[in-house]
């Protein structure tokens, strides 16, 4: 409210808040406000469903906090994290998760690239083949796990029964032996996700500049030279995208493991997510499960950073920029 002084002169200043409101704003200011309010719902959404749970998970990981025994809740600092590295099963889960991720993503990159190169030429056959190849990626991982479990069972499995009878692999089935179970899971993952890898890489191949390729061909470069000196360097961004996507996904593997082996036998196929779900949703051990979740995030972030670094280095080395 403005007040008139006894002399009839308007006071020099209004209250600060009103001054702020009535201050003439530049176009840039208005635009900034407008953009802020436009972005606000999205920011709020991310804060509520992303940042807040993450922060809570981080906080819980410093407590011994079990929903079934709330009265025993206690701040324990880093003990949950120490316990993860002290527990043989959890250590095994970390090793398994890395082995699973690196092997399956590596195989998928190799076979995905081969597939993408085969499908590069735009023909009707290739388009149809691509559509069929993508079928595995459309099936829920949980269902894929159940299908393979049924196929590989030693008693009734369409594949497992004959394998067991022929004396190939362990008598009790490939998924029940500590030596073979993780490899079977890696193969299942490859079966499902190699086509997706191929699709991403194929999109990259299709966007390559054809003039450069044609020029190299005219200059007499061999197929191998064209691949290593032109295709591969130009494909680095696509490779990076495919690797990051699949690495993050593979590192969080849960469904197919949970329904086929449940992490066994003897923790041979236990992964970080299976462990976290068991601790969090079966035993309601929220503190410990949160710590496992945070470690998983940390590992994924580290791997993404390493991938980024490697691709950047390669880019500098090959493309010189």
């Amino acid at each position, binding site marked *: 409210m403005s007040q008139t002084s006894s002399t009839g002169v308007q006071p020099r200043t209004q209250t600060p808040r009103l001054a702020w409101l009535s201050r003439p704003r530049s176009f840039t200011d208005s635009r900034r406000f407008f953009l802020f309010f436009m972005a606000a719902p999205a920011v709020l959404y991310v804060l509520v469903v992303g940042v807040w749970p993450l922060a809570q998970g981080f906080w819980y990981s410093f407590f011994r906090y079990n*929903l*079934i*025994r*709330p009265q025993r809740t206690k701040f324990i600092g880093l003990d949950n994290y120490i316990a993860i590295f002290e527990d*043989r*099963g959890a250590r095994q889960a970390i090793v398994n998760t890395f082995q699973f991720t690196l092997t399956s993503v590596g195989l998928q990159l190799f076979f995905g690239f081969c597939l993408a190169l085969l499908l590069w030429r735009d023909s009707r056959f290739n388009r149809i083949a691509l559509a069929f190849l993508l079928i595995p990626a459309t099936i829920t991982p949980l269902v894929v796990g159940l299908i393979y*479990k049924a196929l590989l*069972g*030693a*008693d*009734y*499995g369409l594949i*497992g029964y004959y394998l*067991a009878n022929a004396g190939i692999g362990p*008598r*009790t*089935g490939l*998924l*029940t*032996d*500590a030596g073979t179970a993780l490899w079977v899971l890696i193969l299942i993952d490859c079966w499902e996700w190699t086509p997706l890898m191929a699709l991403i890489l194929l999109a990259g191949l299709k966007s390559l500049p054809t003039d450069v390729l044609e020029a190299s061909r005219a200059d007499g470069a061999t197929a191998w030279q064209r691949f290593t000196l032109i295709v591969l360097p130009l494909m680095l961004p696509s490779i990076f995208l495919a690797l990051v996507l699949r690495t993050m996904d593979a590192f969080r593997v849960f469904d197919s493991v949970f329904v086929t*082996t*449940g*992490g*066994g*036998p*003897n*923790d*041979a196929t236990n992964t970080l997510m299976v462990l976290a779900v*068991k601790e969090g*949703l*079966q*035993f*309601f051990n929220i503190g410990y499960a949160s710590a496992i979740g945070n470690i998983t995030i940390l590992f994924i972030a580290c791997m993404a950073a390493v991938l980024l670094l490697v691709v950047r280095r390669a880019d500098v080395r090959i493309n010189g920029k």
Partner: protein
Amino acid sequence: MTKIANFRLSKTTSVLGASLLALMATTAYGQDKPLEGVTLTLASQNDQFGAVLAKMAPEFKEATGADLKVEIMDYGTLLTKTTADFVGDTKGYDLVTMDIVWAGAYAENQYSVDLTEWVKRDAAELELDDIYPVILESLGQYDGKYVAFPFAAYANVLAYRKDLFEAAGLDVPKTMEEMVADAKTLTDPAKNQYGFVANGQMGAAVAQDWMQYNSQMGGSILDAEGMPALNSPENVKSLAVYKELFADTAPPGAIEYDWGGREESFRQGIAAMMQTWSVGAPGYSDPAISNVVGKVGIATAPVGEGVAPEYGVGGWGMAINADIDAKQQEAAWTFIKWLVSKPIHKEFNLDGAGSFMRKSQMTDPDLLAKFDFLPVIATTYENGNGDYRPRIPEYPEIQDILGSAVNAVLSGAVEPQAALDEAQAKAEELF
């Protein structure tokens, strides 16, 4: 606007209306359908009794006026959903089927209404004397208080193929040693015939089956002080025998079997013998699902030589959610009393619930005509032990530890002693 008073009622309508109001106000009407308008939600395990409970809901409404909604789910989902309901005080379920081994957790966390006073008050109506003491104690009580009331008791029995035993000239095994020997005799992989089958799947399945055999061979999960004794010499020995049974006499895929897979292999005729809960027994004579109709005998479970005959008792109690209001709790208690009453519980079993628990049921001609194995169940209950799986709050974790350890031994990844040593170290951390 039209006023209600503007409507004119005929004299007859007015009189009838007034009479109806008067009738509704009388206790006579109230007692006829005392729970009119009440809805009870029941979280049920997906055992045989689940479908029967759902089927009997209209009958309960007829008797009391209350609606009963039965939600049937598998074991893991039931545990997760009901625990979340209890912990979050969300009052999603009024009644919950409680596995015998959850009693400790229910008591410690006061998830369910303490029924002790109500049981005392209604003892005559419940006809407690007609229920086997071991069932009352292990399926309902923890530390002397009723955390639930028993409604579905199971006896651990030996199911065996009469035809195969006769053909081989064998008697039904009385001891574990005889059982192991018979299982070996009856195994012939070339004919896809195996002497024995049990749960091998990692987790609750293998843990529970092994605990059963372990107890029969003289082993125990806890010591006399109630502390874990997983790596005791008896336990290590019994685990070695269990592994031997799997390696030499079980179908190759048994390491992946849970209860369903085990029963299936027996009904398919692949296995000659298995220990099982009595609840599955009616299924063996059902031609729709069984290849061994008329060929199955039920006997009391064998015990180790020199071990006092004690048989496994398991099953389910009905608990009332402690979070719901008093009126709902009373209604839920009315349901429990109705369900376990002699005539209704008999009907419940005749409909295939497989949940026998009253002494009178063991000699009931109608039940005996349908279930000739009832005398075996009676003997099992008379010498029953409901604590071979410790009903302590830490049970779920112990079960999981054992579930991993025993499965690892069966897969050949680790030796019994090493597996149980590690399991013991983990179990000790819980106490």
